[in-house]
């Protein structure tokens, strides 16, 4: 039911862990639902310089977390926060319909981390 790309990211997830002294932290999901995601980012010149994730969840949850870190790294914040669930799913060659919520979680996780950075650094969007 999973694409080879999903399985590849599940087998070898990119950017697992937490960045040191993160500029922004996004935590989404909850253990009752079986999914919990924590995204930490380092921001420099309004770009995502570094990003790491920690995820408790199914194969799709881990693969989407891994994928969003790849999609976001090096991107300007304004671009990164526009990454949609469909972008993540497409990059993984699709997700089973009942697993689409995992890509929602990943996209939300990144947006939360960016929001956290902005509120901490006082660079709220105008």
């Amino acid at each position, binding site marked *: *039911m*999973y694409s080879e790309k999903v*399985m590849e990211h*599940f*087998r070898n*997830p990119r950017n*697992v862990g937490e960045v040191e002294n993160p500029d922004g932290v996004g*935590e989404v999901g*909850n*253990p*009752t*639902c*079986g*999914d*919990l*995601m*924590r995204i930490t980012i380092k921001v420099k010149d309004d770009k995502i310089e570094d990003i790491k994730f*920690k*995820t*408790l*969840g*199914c*194969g799709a*949850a*881990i693969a989407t977390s891994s994928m969003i870190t790849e999609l976001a790294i090096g991107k300007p914040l304004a671009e990164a926060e526009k990454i949609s669930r469909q972008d993540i799913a497409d990059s993984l060659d699709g997700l*089973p319909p*009942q697993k689409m*919520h995992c890509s929602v979680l990943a996209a939300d996780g990144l947006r939360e981390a960016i929001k956290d950075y902005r509120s901490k650094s006082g660079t709220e969007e105008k």
Partner: protein
Amino acid sequence: MEEKFIYLDYAATTPMRPEVVEVMTPYFTKEFGNPSSLYTLGRNARGAIEDARDRVAAFIGADSREIVFTSGGTEADNFAIKGVAYANEKKGKHIIATPIEHHAVLEPCHFLNKRGFELTYLPVDEHGIVDPADVEKAITDTTVLVSVMHANNEVGTIEPLEEISKVTRAKGVYLHTDAVQTFGHIPVNVNDLGVDLLSVSAHKLYGPKGVGVLYIRRGTRMVSFMQGGSQENNRRAGTHNVAGIVGFAKAVEIAEREMAAEATRLAELRDHLIRGIFEKIPNSRLNGHPSKRLPNNVSMCLVGAEGEAILLSLDMEGISASSGSACTSGTLDPSHVLLAMGIPAEIAHSSLRLTLGKETTKEDIDYVLDILPPTIERLRAMSPLDASWGKSKC
């Protein structure tokens, strides 16, 4: 190096034994007759079906006339529940079931519930066991059927049917059991168990898929499940699955011969695996009853890792496992069985089921015990909860 393949999902399905394939083969080609035809070819097929019926009946202490062949366990469950409910509407429209039944029982119960039947779920304890006293309490003047599975497919717990049937008999209520996980694996005798209806599937005991049996005790008021020809004494219309039925009987014959020794062998491997997981993986818990359990079932919660991620990881190492029951993989909800046993959702999400069988060896179990601990460690290390597990608020 040869690629590892260790199948530990025998509760989902089993490979057919070569002897089973062998006896089935002629019925696809040379002996293709319709068992309802009167000429020799038809009579041969009919004879094979009746021999098969006799064997299945003898195996569970039933009379041959009480055996109805079906398309499998799901049909047998549907037939039992709807068949009794619709035939006894004048007496009452109340049915009772456990919340840990297979979906093949739960869904027909929901179906009836939506159409004016009352449905009561029995409580189960933390091991999934039904208290016969609760059955007595649940029965009312309008109750027509109680359905309690013989053993649970996810956690392996064996229910005290002998005690439960004393209650249903005293109250004059029919008792159905889904024996799909026990038939051919531990002794199943309809008179010892005291059941009126019992569902069985062939592919769980090294027989073919697509064939099963519903045992119906003589005198049980039932409506027929399929309307059409007069097969199975007008109880189940449709041309018989002759090859499947013949293969089923062969699987039963083998089970008769091997079941006792195999149950002992598997129970030892099961306990070795459970002990090994407890020793090597901190924060693991056994689901289901420690001793009143199927000889081949290991069901654990490996707290802090997620079930599907565990089984995908094991598959990468050549191990076929299940997180709960195969029928529900593909849904997001944690197992309804574990939730009914009072296990919190965040723990239930970490369930892993390994079910052993014919080809399972001690070496296989030791391989799993080498692979599983680092797998769980890796997934736990990836989790944002690690040390704070269980303390965080949802």
